[in-house]
């Protein structure tokens, strides 16, 4: 208990050194919060988008684009129309569905645009089998639209990769900075460590005291860093996504993108709402404590190898 009391006293006594330490830890935690919050939110958005799009199944006749070899779907069609509107509507009664959107008149007046919403993405195969049983011809496809997913979630995926890279850089650099900083702080406190050991204090207790000081500073920085990170992560995410949207502008889009646009597919995501959920907060807290502990342990283990008499004689 006295080790913790002593650590608390020390925090107040060395304001300059501890403030410097706190600023650096705060910077590391804040950047970690921004990176991890964006990464986790992007991940959630990707999963939700994928899930939403994988649940939406389009039933349409298949055609091959002459010359390109690319199979494209069209919402129904008069030439291949083997499925009637009544059949499309009958397909909607499947127990695997949450709903359906079957309407006449897509781009052409006589087309049927049929989208069925599965309860779960995994039910696709069962649903397709059911439709085949109900008379859906083989030249009709039953599938989700991957190109739409790529178009909608592409920028978010790039944002996620960017934030992960940034996070890894911050963590590696942060760990190196923390270790170096701990070495400097511990070297500065070598004499104090020598005195405490000369008085009979155990190495473990000295290490615990130093670790406690670092952890208290880290916890304070965690609270501040969470606040600063929450404020900063939204504008950072917006700026990156805006950049992503510009790079995927219509002029540079692929054939599939242009076809999707022509079909009125959902436009690319240009904004996601960054949220720091409890899991993210816990991850950041764990990372912070881990970094502080690793740095502290490496530095303390080195200094406690010196005999107290040597430390005191060097000083004196």
């Amino acid at each position, binding site marked *: 208990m006295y080790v913790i009391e002593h650590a608390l006293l020390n925090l107040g006594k060395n304001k300059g050194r501890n403030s410097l330490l706190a600023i650096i830890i705060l910077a590391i935690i804040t950047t970690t919060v921004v990176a991890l919050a964006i990464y986790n939110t992007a991940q959630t958005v990707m999963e939700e988008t994928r899930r939403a799009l994988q649940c939406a199944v389009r039933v349409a006749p298949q055609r091959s684009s002459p010359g390109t070899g690319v199979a494209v779907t069209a919402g129904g069609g008069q030439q291949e129309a083997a499925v009637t509107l009544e059949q499309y509507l009958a397909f909607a009664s499947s127990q695997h569905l949450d709903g359906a959107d079957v309407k006449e008149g897509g781009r052409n007046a006589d087309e049927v645009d049929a989208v069925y919403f599965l309860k779960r993405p995994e039910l696709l195969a069962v649903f397709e089998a059911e439709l085949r049983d109900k008379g859906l011809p083989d030249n009709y496809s039953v599938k989700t639209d991957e190109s739409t997913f790529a178009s909608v979630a592409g920028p978010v995926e790039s944002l996620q990769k960017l934030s992960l890279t940034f996070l890894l850089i911050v963590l590696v650099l942060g760990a190196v900075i923390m270790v170096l900083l701990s070495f400097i702080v511990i070297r500065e406190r070598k004499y104090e460590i020598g005195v405490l050991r000369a008085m009979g204090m155990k190495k473990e207790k000295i290490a615990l005291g130093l670790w406690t000081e670092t952890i208290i500073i880290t916890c304070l920085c965690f609270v501040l860093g969470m606040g600063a990170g929450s404020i900063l992560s939204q504008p950072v995410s917006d700026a990156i996504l805006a950049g992503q949207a510009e790079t995927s502008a219509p002029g540079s889009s692929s054939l599939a993108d242009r076809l999707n646009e022509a079909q009125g597919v959902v436009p690319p995501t240009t904004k996601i709402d960054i949220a720091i959920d409890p899991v993210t907060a816990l991850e950041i807290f764990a990372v912070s404590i881990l970094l502080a502990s690793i740095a502290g342990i490496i530095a303390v283990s080195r200094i406690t190898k010196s005999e107290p008499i040597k430390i005191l004689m060097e*000083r004196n």
Partner: protein
Amino acid sequence: MAMLALQNVSYRYEGSTKTIFNDVNLQFEAGKIYTIVGKSGAGKSTLLYLLSGLDVATGGRIEYEGENLAAINRNHFRAQKAGIIFQSLNLLTNATALDNIILSMNISGVTGVDKKVRALELLQKVGISPEKASRKVLKLSGGEQQRVGIARALAHDPVLILADEPTGNLDKENEARVLKIFATLAHDEGKCVIIVTHAKKVTAVADEIWSLEKGVFRQLPVGK
């Protein structure tokens, strides 16, 4: 039985061929004050480091109550049994006088007393007022710092007091006060007090005086 016994103790610094002492046999008993005198660099402070377990003899053995000091937990020995007064004080300069003493009691695991009250009593005993007790050590004079160092060494009520030039920075009044404390500790409370000193006044309170010259200990007559 002697509290501390040196048996054929030799010592030389790491990486050096020069021997500081060779084959020393000495005994220190409870209830007595011992002074070790000798020229600077003779190895007096080194002897105190060996007796406190801060350093280990390169030859022979030092026994504390029959146990080899090199083989026991020397951190525990210093925290529980020995009170060390360093020539260079070795106080935590950023902490207050009071905090230094309370920390010493905490390290030693002192329980059952109000540590602040005991620390203030000890400081009062060495002539440090409660007002100065709350000052950072750096803001005290050299003499005051030395007395804080003495109070710290006594904080955990050790049976063995090892003092390196404990009166070096003190005026006559405070020197007399400190020597009286040492006399009480040894003669009334049965502790063993070993003092390394240059001051003749200190040798005047000793029960045994030993000189160290060229690695050889020689007992001097008391009162001369």
